[in-house]
């Protein structure tokens, strides 16, 4: 049975009629066209599908779309504002903190959630916060440095 579900997606009111048991990941990708959020393992182990829901990083492959009803979702496409990249996006480019790029949206979104909670994390706190996001290419140290740089810039801007 299809249902009408409403939520805020990247700041915009969104309404769609769909199978409420479909995972948020496949709805975002296939019905709404937000393909920056990736499928990696399907059971929440890798973090490629991470989105922010009410500012909390959530594995969208594990959540039925009905679970997001009435909430605010941010995907990688929603981080840039008015054509300006988010400080994390800029820092990932500056530190060359990616290779194949497939885990990158999940890394940046997880880091965004981390910085919302803790605007000035220590290196160890970044490691702890990112530990469950997997990168196979081995960009880890550069990702840590990019998050440190972004944290500095974000504090400076406020």
């Amino acid at each position, binding site marked *: 049975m299809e249902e009408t579900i409403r939520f805020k997606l990247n700041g915009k009111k969104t309404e769609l009629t769909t*199978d409420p*048991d*479909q*995972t948020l990941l*496949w709805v975002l*990708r*296939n019905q709404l*066209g*937000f*393909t*920056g*959020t*990736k*499928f*990696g*393992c*399907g*059971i929440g*182990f*890798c973090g*490629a599908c991470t989105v922010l829901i009410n500012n909390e990083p959530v594995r969208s492959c594990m959540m039925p779309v009905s679970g997001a009803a009435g909430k605010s979702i941010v*995907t*990688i*496409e929603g*981080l*840039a504002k008015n054509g300006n*990249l988010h400080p*994390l*996006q800029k820092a*990932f*480019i500056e530190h*060359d903190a*990616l*290779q*194949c*790029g*497939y*885990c*990158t*949206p999940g890394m*940046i979104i997880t880091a965004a959630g981390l910085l919302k909670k803790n605007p000035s994390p220590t290196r160890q706190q*970044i*490691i*702890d916060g*990112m*530990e*469950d*996001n*997997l*990168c*196979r*290419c*081995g*960009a*880890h*140290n*550069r*990702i*840590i440095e990019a998050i440190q740089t972004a944290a500095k810039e974000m504090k400076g801007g406020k």
Partner: protein
Amino acid sequence: MKKTESNPGMKRRSFVKLMGGGIFIFFQPWSILDLSALPADQARSLSKDYNAFIRIAEDGTVSCFTGKIEMGQGIITSLAQMMADELNVLLEKVKMVMGDTDLCPYDQGTWGSLTTRSFGPNMRAAAAEARAVLLELASSKLGVPPSQLEVKEGIVVDTKNPQNAIAYGQLAKGQKIEKFLDVKPSPEDHTKFTYMGKPYKHSDAKLKVTGEAKYAGDLKLPGMIFARILRPPSHGAKLSSADVSGAEKIEGVQVVRDGDFIAVVSENRNKVDEAILKIKADYTFDELKVNDRTLKDWMLKADSRVSIAKTEGDIAVGRQQSDKVFEHTYNDPYLAHAAIETHTALAAFEGDKVTVWASTQSPFGLQDGIVRELGLPREKVRVITPFVGGGFGGKAAYQQGVEAARLAKLTGKPVMVVWTRDEVFFYDTFHPAGVVRIASGMDKSGRITMWDYHVYFSGTRGAETTYDVPNATTTSYSENTKVSRVHPFGTGPWRAPNNNMNTFARESQIDIMASAAGIDPLEFRLKNLKDEKMIACWKSVAEKFGYSSAKAPSGRGIGIACGTDAGTWLAMMVEVKVDTSNGKVTVLRVACTQDMGLCVNPQGALIQMEGCIAMGLGYTFTEEVRFEGGNILDRNYDTYQIPRFSWIPKTDCVILDRMDQAPQGGGEPAIITVGAAVGNAIFDATGARLFRMPFTRERVLEALKKI
């Protein structure tokens, strides 16, 4: 896209027609590509046609066509650097067109760290030819001889009258010049490089941090459906019966069947995940009686084809000259590639032609696979490779692309196949497990006198002796499939195919000998090395690391290893901390120096070294595919642990300046020494020696008990 002629690849004339005006440089790939390396199943009837390499468009854009693909290794950046340098154009004027079987020259696949060392020089030769054509055109336009012209940022300038100038784009305007490349690539004067040798960041980074970069699974076509395919529970199992009625009952799901090939399709991805579980299937089993625990003995006893890879001197003489003889056996397991993007493909027919967008390291291999399995003529199959989310050798296989094409034919709709993580583990072409047995000897002075090396079932890449040994033999034992199977499932290349294992065995054995001789491990190696390149790597890395001499075990936890891979030489030093209470080993820092000849993009190459070291920690500490016969027991990242943030040490990498030499491989070499260096460091810290990878906590504790 239409093709009018029936030869492999797009015909030259239709290609030019399609692309519009400009200057084209074609080449005959068979004259310069090394076909001897081509596996038999990928051999093609050779085309007499030419494929495009370069197009200079009327707006001055330079397009570079390559059958290579981008999977994170950064060639989208480094190939553009080479092109920009040869043609004297701005880097941003170079556009890369990659992995499209209709547009790009045939390529056997992106692996073996071959892009820069093998494709690169040919591409540069084509660019040099294009530049000569442009100078000729400019010469007649500007009315001065070519020798009086120079090119700056895509503008040809009369050196005697700088006002007299013309841009490449203007020269290409209204032109349809086709040039055919017959020249051999010649080494370039590196002092004239503008882009090569300088660090550039990933040119695709912005696309990747914004989510705009398109991977195969991100594409969408009208009417597209998702598919899941019924899989056997283990390798070797054969379907005896299947009841699909449960799946058929699910609304919006269609069951597709073609013999033993059974799939469910739906517009809703979650519905196919649900439906596939509702199929009741029975199988007959034909499993090999081997598992990950019995594998080593199984291999040593198995029938095999024996070949002597290399011999020098006489092992018997070497044994007589030896004061001490060391005999040890090393082994390693099957390893999964575990790229974060699963194998994915979208296939769609337009008329009788199929186009497949696939995450693959071998677009032309996939094209051949579809030709073979669907019986289509080659010109009716086009493969396009978008960004690939990691490969490491695992996407040299392309089964998912054939499946998508097959389902598109059966359903008449565009079909998206996104393998689950479970399917990727099951069908992965694993790094082959192997065993290495070494008998080595040295004289009283610590000179190696004998090296008798035997490698079982995992291949000889990196099995060279490396050291200066008068009596040495390398013997390889490989699967004799006519007699019996050894590997219960598919195997294939995995970042530096088997060099990890060979380097682990060789460098551990060397360390054992150094310790027995009471000589510092670096001093022992230098004493037995003649290779100038390796000695230079050692000197560099020792300085970077701040190495001080001590015989092992010194208690410091420092381990070293060296090796060669893909034409590149490297040496590595690591420092570890061992918790003897629970077997946990932490790598504190790593230093690595490599000699890779001309380094086109030092930034990209450095990142590849770092990536190799990080990935190497996986095969060193945790990665091991557990199996029972044909049943793969590890099917996701919960039990198959790959490196995480907390594992990654401080890493210092050095690339030696070899601008005047031919470029060598960069995507794989630095992974080969990680296991060996860590193993030697554990010995240096504790006196415990590990002979089997990975070094799990249990195995470290076990080794500690044996001291």
